[in-house]
């Protein structure tokens, strides 16, 4: 039995790109967990999409062994993603740890997610070790950044560790501090088994792989266990540690982190946040996690209606490995049968879509993303609206509410003005400004989530020359003067093109959308009218003139194969279009409603 004294469980958290995964590489190297030969950069980012994008998407756990002052320790590390969309992964990871390394880039300093993650770790009562990383950078401002950490987060600048995950400098001190300063887990080996399910993924051959942190007691290979939430009982076929690949062992005990394989082929059985215990005389369930909050929804439809079932299967497969993504069947007059899908944010949406495209053969039509709204109707019903199609007629609405988030911007003081303008233009409510250091400020606004997800991030980057960062958390749903803006193509309302927006923006958005559609929809043999309307009131109109002439003059021997290729391409393009009336609408056009109508 391993004494709990010799176990440390910790996460690495930071703003995106501050070097978490690179520091994890150094730990793997220093502890000899991974052979020098096998080590690659950001080794734990092993999903193809993570490697392609150079960011961490999924939190990863690893068990390492390290000798410190003559004593062998077991260190369980969880590398977390930095992007705001995946904050949920961070909080799940924190719940399995006693401490966290809070990394701060020596050049960039404290950023929005640094603050957000520091607070999250504090909420979990973790021992936080602030670390300035990238001290090797020529432009490193290490001392200043230590000051920023002290001012903004209240740590003593003198306690801040310094390292370079790239060169390895200072990494051994960080590891020593993990052992010296982070407390060992508390737990009782003799208690009944109580383990927290903090993640899972699905393996085609072995079924669900359940990731657990054992809180009390121990769990052995061959034992029978019960998932308390579902009450389902299983035999433990295999268990072990992540090193970082799965390495089977005989048992996991209180304080340890590892995995279980129980030949679970039914997905409903594994719930993240569930508690694993013994079958008889079970322990009490652990508090578990809050449900992830889906911030954006969009419709995903197969281009070819025949592929509906295939798409369902592909979505199911993804949902198994990513519980923060959800989907439900929906129908659209324009697009046929498809799914309304909920995501943590736009990056999450983009990633899911990319995985769908890579992992299945289904060609997709995506509708523009929207947030969730609430409507109270005149007859006293409360509706949750995930798609503009579900908005009742204006006359039936008593109150229309939208999600509002509190946004924290961290930026050099010089850019406060432009950022405040951005927020004011979006009807933001000013909350406060704080100085993190003489030159860096945190500006806080309450803004409609819809405004935040569409283009605020890009606008922030351009308003601050790339120096501004932002983080947000949901405050709740608040009433607003919202309308459903409909788009008519050739006189037919295209449900998949409707949007919900503030009444004050409707004219501008409407004009922008029909203008964009004019560019996206090819000319037909007849004139096509494009209209934006609120109810029956048309607020913008464009016309696509009829195609009068389309004929290739020359077509001789040498032209035949080129022409055929061209026509084949056109036909493929057309097949993927959706017809409304007799107008062919290309897939890309369904995103035209994202067009905001220029600067505001």
């Amino acid at each position, binding site marked *: 039995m391993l004494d709990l004294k010799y176990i440390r469980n910790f996460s690495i958290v930071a703003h995106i790109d501050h070097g978490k995964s690179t520091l994890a590489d150094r730990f793997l190297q220093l502890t000899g967990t991974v052979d020098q030969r096998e080590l690659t950069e950001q080794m734990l980012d092993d999903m193809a999409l993570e490697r392609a994008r150079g960011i961490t998407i999924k939190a990863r756990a690893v068990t390492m062994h390290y000798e410190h002052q003559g004593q062998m320790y077991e260190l369980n590390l969880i590398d977390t993603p930095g992007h705001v969309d995946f904050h949920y992964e961070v909080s799940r990871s924190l719940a399995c740890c006693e401490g966290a390394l809070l990394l701060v880039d020596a050049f960039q300093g404290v950023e929005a997610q640094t603050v957000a993650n520091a607070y999250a770790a504090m909420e979990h009562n973790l021992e936080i070790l602030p670390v300035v990383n990238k001290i090797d950078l020529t432009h490193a401002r290490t001392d200043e950044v230590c000051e920023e950490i002290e001012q903004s987060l209240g740590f003593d600048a003198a306690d801040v560790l310094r390292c370079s995950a790239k060169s390895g400098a200072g990494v051994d001190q960080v590891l020593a501090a993990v052992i010296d300063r982070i407390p060992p887990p508390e737990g009782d080996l003799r208690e009944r088994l109580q383990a927290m399910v903090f993640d899972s993924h699905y393996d085609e051959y072995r079924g669900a792989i359940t990731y657990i942190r054992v809180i009390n007691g121990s769990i052995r290979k061959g034992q029978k266990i019960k998932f308390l939430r579902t009450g389902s009982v299983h035999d433990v076929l295999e268990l072990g540690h992540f090193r970082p690949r799965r390495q089977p062992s005989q048992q996991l005990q209180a304080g340890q982190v590892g995995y279980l394989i129980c030949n679970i082929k039914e997905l409903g059985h594994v719930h993240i946040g569930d508690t694993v215990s013994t079958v008889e005389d079970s322990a009490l369930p652990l508090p578990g996690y809050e449900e992830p909050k889906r911030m954006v929804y969009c419709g995903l439809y197969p281009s070819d209606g025949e592929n509906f079932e295939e798409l369902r299967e592909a979505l199911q497969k993804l949902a198994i490995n990513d519980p923060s993504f959800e989907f439900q069947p929906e129908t659209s007059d324009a697009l046929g049968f498809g799914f309304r899908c909920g995501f943590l944010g736009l990056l999450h949406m983009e990633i899911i879509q990319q995985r769908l495209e890579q992992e299945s053969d289904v060609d997709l039509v995506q509708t523009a993303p929207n947030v969730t709204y609430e409507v109270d109707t005149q007859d006293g019903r409360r509706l949750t609206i995930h798609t503009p199609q579900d908005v009742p007629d204006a006359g039936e609405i008593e109150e229309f509410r939208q999600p509002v988030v509190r946004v924290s911007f961290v930026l050099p003081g010089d850019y406060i003005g432009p950022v405040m303008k951005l927020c004011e233009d979006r009807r933001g409510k000013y909350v406060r400004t704080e100085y993190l250091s003489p030159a860096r400020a945190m500006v806080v606004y309450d803004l409609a989530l819809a405004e935040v997800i569409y283009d605020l991030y890009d606008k922030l980057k351009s308003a601050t020359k790339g120096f501004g960062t932002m983080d947000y958390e949901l405050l709740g749903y608040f009433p607003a003067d919202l309308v459903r803006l409909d788009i008519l193509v050739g006189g037919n309302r295209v449900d998949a093109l409707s949007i919900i927006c503030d009444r004050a923006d409707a004219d501008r958005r409407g004009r922008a959308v029909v203008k964009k559609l004019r560019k996206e929809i090819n000319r037909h043999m007849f004139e096509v009218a494009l209209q934006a309307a609120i109810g029956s009131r048309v607020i913008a109109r464009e016309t696509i003139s009829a195609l009068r002439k389309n004929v290739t003059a020359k077509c001789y021997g040498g032209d035949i194969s080129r022409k055929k290729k061209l026509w084949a391409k056109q036909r493929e393009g*057309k097949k993927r279009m959706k017809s409304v009336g007799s107008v062919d609408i290309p897939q890309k056009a369904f995103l035209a409603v994202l067009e905001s109508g220029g600067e505001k």
Partner: protein
Amino acid sequence: MKTEPDPLKPAAVVDESPNRSPDFSPHLPPRATYIHVPFCAHRCGYCNFTLVADREDLIPAYLHALETELQLLEQPRPVDTLYIGGGTPTWLDVDSLQQLLQIVLHWFPPRRQAEFTVEANPADVTPPRMALLTEAGVTRLSLGAQSFDPTKLRTLERDHTAGDIQRAVQLVRQHGQQIALDLIFAVPSETQSVWQDDLDRAVRSGASHLSTYGLTYEKGTPFWTRRYKGQLRAAAEEDELAMYLTAIDTLTAAGFEHYEISNFARPGCKSRHNEVYWTGGGYYAAGPGAARLVGNLRQSNHRSTTTYIRRLASGDSPVAEAERLSAEELARERLLFGLRRLEGIDEAQFPQQTGFQIDELAGPAVRHYVDQGLLARQDGRLRLTRQGLVVSDSIWPDLL
């Protein structure tokens, strides 16, 4: 030849659909040949053809490469139609032209009544060249006239004058060949009356065959770039359409038959060679960028003249792209390209020639366009209507 299938050997007849009995001409050895001559005095701003300008130094190497390519035929192939195009074949000096004709005639001896066309730039049509061409048995000259209007010719960057066209026509007539003229319309700032004038003068010239092409802006040409930068204004669609319809009306009224989208001929004067392309026949081809259809194998040579020469010099295949066509693909091609001919397709003959019914290839699309009035089914033929003619490129993808 290293990897490519031998381009010029008659392909074995492969019938991939044993239940059908296609009597399809590509399965017979071709009786048509195209030879590409990639030389021009300079490159006109709108032209994206396979050619080199100001590289007369390459002519001997080209002739040598052509000969090497043709040796792959192993034995001469008598043909019914022979077409030497370019580029500008007549840009060759008299000696080189003579050599070219010798090589081509050796490998492709014309059969009786053969049609033998050479493309020419009006400015190059000189008595010595005409003597040579006549002696070689050329029956038809296709003159790149493009226009009789000086401004228009200048815009097109052509190096000949209206006078050159007249002189050339005279000289060709004296030698007894038929004359085909190419004309371009919808040139920037061209008016309807300039175009009408061109048509009238073309009719009066005595040409028996006219091709009219709307100016296109091809990627990679100076015209494309200039239009992109706003320095050239393409004609409005309405004007281009009006000019096209004017051509059809003027020329048919003058006794020409409008027999293909952009081709008009006096009775008995259609281009038999080009008809081979549209009716799904097979054809040999040689020279840079040239495309052939032999059996069910379609190949195109490399478009770069220097690469073409280099490949042949080092014993490599000049072929850049090759595709084997299934019986169904051949039938579809025949449907699509056959519909470019205004008389359309004989619905009863089509299955005999291809092994496929039209409806089985594209039934719903054909019915849709018949309903829309763009195609017509009449007297056992399927053909484009006048309305379909002008938007025909929107139809083809659906028939493919």
